[in-house]
C-alpha cells in the first residue's frame, strides 16, 4: 500500500494486565506494584535496545514538554496527574512506554516520514516481549481490553501528520474532515493548525486488524496529499501574484525578523517549503532536513533545552522567540526567489 506523502507517523498500542483493575478504578498500592514489575521487566534481558526509565516526579516541566514535543509522550499523559504513573524511552527514542495512564500500558512510536508499517513492526515486537511477562486482558470478542471500550480491539491508534497549507487556505479541510468523520477517522489540527499541519487518526480499533487500520489511513492520506498537490498547482496557475507574494513575504520575515513565536515560525517554514516544492524559491539551509524536522526543533521546549542550556523555566519567555528568530535567520540565509 502506498503511504508516501506522510509528514510524520505515530502509533499507540494500548494494553492492560488481566489481574488488576484499570488505572482509574485501581488502588495506589496495586498500581505502584504494577509499575515496579514493568520497570523490572524493562531492565531485564532480551531487549535489542536499552530502556531509559524516567522518574516523572523529578522531571522539570521543560523536560516533560520536550518529551511531548518529540512525540514520545502524549499531551494527555503529560497533563494527567496521578498515582503509580511511570514512563520509559526505548533506545534513542525509537519507542516509548506510558505506564498507568488511562490504561496500564501504552506503547508509543513517532517518527518523521511515512513509517506506519515500520512503527507497527517495532511496537509489535516490544509488545511480544512485554506479553511474555504480563498476562494481558484479552477477550476473543472484544480483543485487547481497555478502560475506554471504544479503544478495545487491536488497541492500536495510528496517527498520520499531514502538511496541507493549500487545502487550509482554500477552506477545503472542513469537507475533508467531515468525510473522514464518516469513516471513523479524526482530522484534528496539530499546533492549532499553524502552517496547515493536521493529524489524521482512527478513533476506534474494533473490528479491524492492525494492518487494515494502517492501510486505511495510508490510502486515505495518500489521496488527501494528492489533492493538496493539485490545489497548490491550481493556486499558482490562477493566482500567481498572490502565491509568489505570500511565499516571498515569509522568506523576508524569516530572514530579517528578530522575534518569532512558534506558530508564526511554523507558518513561515510551511510557506517557504511550498515555495521550494513549487520551484519558486531555493532554500539551501532547509535541504538537510525535512520541514517537519525543522518545525519540531523550533518548538519552545526544544529551543530551551537544545539552545539555551535548559535554563529558562518559563516556556513563554520572550528570549525563546528571540532565539527562534536567530535560528531562522541562519536557516534562511542564502535563500532566495528563483525567477
Amino acid at each position, binding site marked *: 500500500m502506498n503511504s508516501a506523502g506522510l509528514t510524520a507517523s505515530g502509533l499507540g498500542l494500548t494494553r492492560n494486565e488481566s489481574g488488576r483493575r484499570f488505572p482509574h478504578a485501581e488502588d495506589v498500592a496495586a498500581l505502584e506494584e504494577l509499575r515496579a514489575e514493568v520497570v523490572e521487566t524493562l531492565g531485564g534481558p532480551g531487549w535489542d535496545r536499552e530502556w531509559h526509565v524516567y522518574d516523572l516526579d523529578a522531571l522539570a516541566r521543560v523536560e516533560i514538554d520536550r518529551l511531548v514535543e518529540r512525540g514520545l509522550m502524549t499531551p494527555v499523559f503529560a497533563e494527567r496527574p496521578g498515582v503509580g504513573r511511570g514512563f520509559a524511552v526505548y533506545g534513542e527514542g525509537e519507542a516509548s512506554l506510558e505506564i498507568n495512564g488511562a490504561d496500564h500500558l501504552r506503547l508509543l512510536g513517532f517518527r518523521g516520514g511515512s513509517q506506519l508499517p515500520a512503527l507497527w513492526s517495532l511496537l509489535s515486537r516490544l509488545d511480544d516481549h512485554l506479553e511474555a511477562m504480563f498476562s494481558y486482558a484479552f477477550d*476473543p470478542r*472484544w480483543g485487547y481490553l481497555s478502560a475506554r*471500550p*471504544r479503544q478495545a480491539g487491536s488497541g492500536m491508534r495510528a496517527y498520520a501528520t499531514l502538511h496541507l497549507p493549500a487545502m487550509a487556505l482554500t477552506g477545503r*479541510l*472542513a469537507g475533508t474532515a467531515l468525510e473522514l*468523520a464518516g469513516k471513523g477517522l479524526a482530522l484534528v489540527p496539530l499546533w492549532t493548525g*499553524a502552517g496547515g499541519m493536521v493529524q489524521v487518526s482512527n478513533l476506534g480499533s474494533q473490528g479491524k*486488524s492492525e494492518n487494515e487500520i494502517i492501510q486505511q489511513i495510508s490510502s486515505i492520506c495518500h489521496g488527501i496529499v494528492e489533492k493538496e498537490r493539485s490545489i497548490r498547482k491550481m493556486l499558482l496557475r490562477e493566482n500567481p501574484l498572490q502565491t509568489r507574494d505570500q511565499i516571498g513575504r515569509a522568506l523576508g520575515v524569516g530572514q530579517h525578523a528578530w522575534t518569532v513565536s512558534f506558530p508564526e515560525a511554523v507558518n513561515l517554514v510551511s510557506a517557504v517549503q511550498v515555495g521550494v516544492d513549487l520551484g519558486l524559491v531555493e532554500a539551501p539551509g532547509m535541504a538537510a532536513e525535512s520541514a517537519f524536522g525543522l518545525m519540531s526543533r523550533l518548538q519552545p521546549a526544544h529551543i530551551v533545552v537544545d539552545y539555551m542550556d535548559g535554563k529558562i523555566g518559563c516556556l513563554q519567555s520572550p528570549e525563546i522567540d528571540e532565539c527562534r528568530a536567530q535560528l531562522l535567520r541562519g536557516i534562511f540565509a542564502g535563500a532566495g526567489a528563483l525567477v
Partner: protein
Amino acid sequence: MFAEESPDWNLDLTGSAICEMCGDEPATVHLLRVVDGTVSHTHLCPGCAESVAEETDGLALVLAVPSVLRDLSKGQVHLDDETEPTAPSDQDALFCAVCGTTLSDLKESGLVGCARCYQIFAEYLESALAGESEPVEHPGKIPQRGPETDNLRHEIMRLQRMLRELVACERFEEAAGVRDRLTELGERLEEEPE
C-alpha cells in the same frame, strides 16, 4: 508530537447529546474551529456541521471529529426500544462486583473499570459500540501466551463464522465437517477449568 485531544471526546456514550445549533438532531459531529489560533468546540448534527463548514471563510479552519461512539443515533434508538420500556431501573442497577462500576457510571464517564465489566455490561456495550452488526471475532493480533481457553474460544468463533458462510453458499458437506470440529472444540472447552 501527538496532537492535543479534546477531553470530552470520550463522553456521550449514551448518544444523548443534541445538536447545539438546531437543538433538534442528535449531535454526532464534534467540530473544532480554529480562528486566529484559538480553538472552539461545538457538538453538531451532520447537517448543521456542513453548513458551518461552508460558511467559514478561507482563513479559518473547520475540523470535525465524530462524536466518539459512532452510530450514536442508532445505538440510542436500539436502547430506547429494548431496555427502557421494560425495566430501565433494573438495567441501571447493574454493577460490576470486581471494580464497583455501575451502568450509570459507565454511561456518564464512558469508562469501564476492569476486564469483568466487559461481561457485565456486554449488552449495553454491544449496542453502543457495534450497533446492529453481528458480534464478530476480533480480527487482529492476539496474545500468544494467553490462557488456552482464549485460543479455543477464538477458534470456535472463527469456525462458527465459517459454518455460516458455508451454509449460506450451500456447501453442506464441508459445513458438516466444520460442525463436527465445532462440537469437538465445544467439549474441550467444557473440560477446561475456568
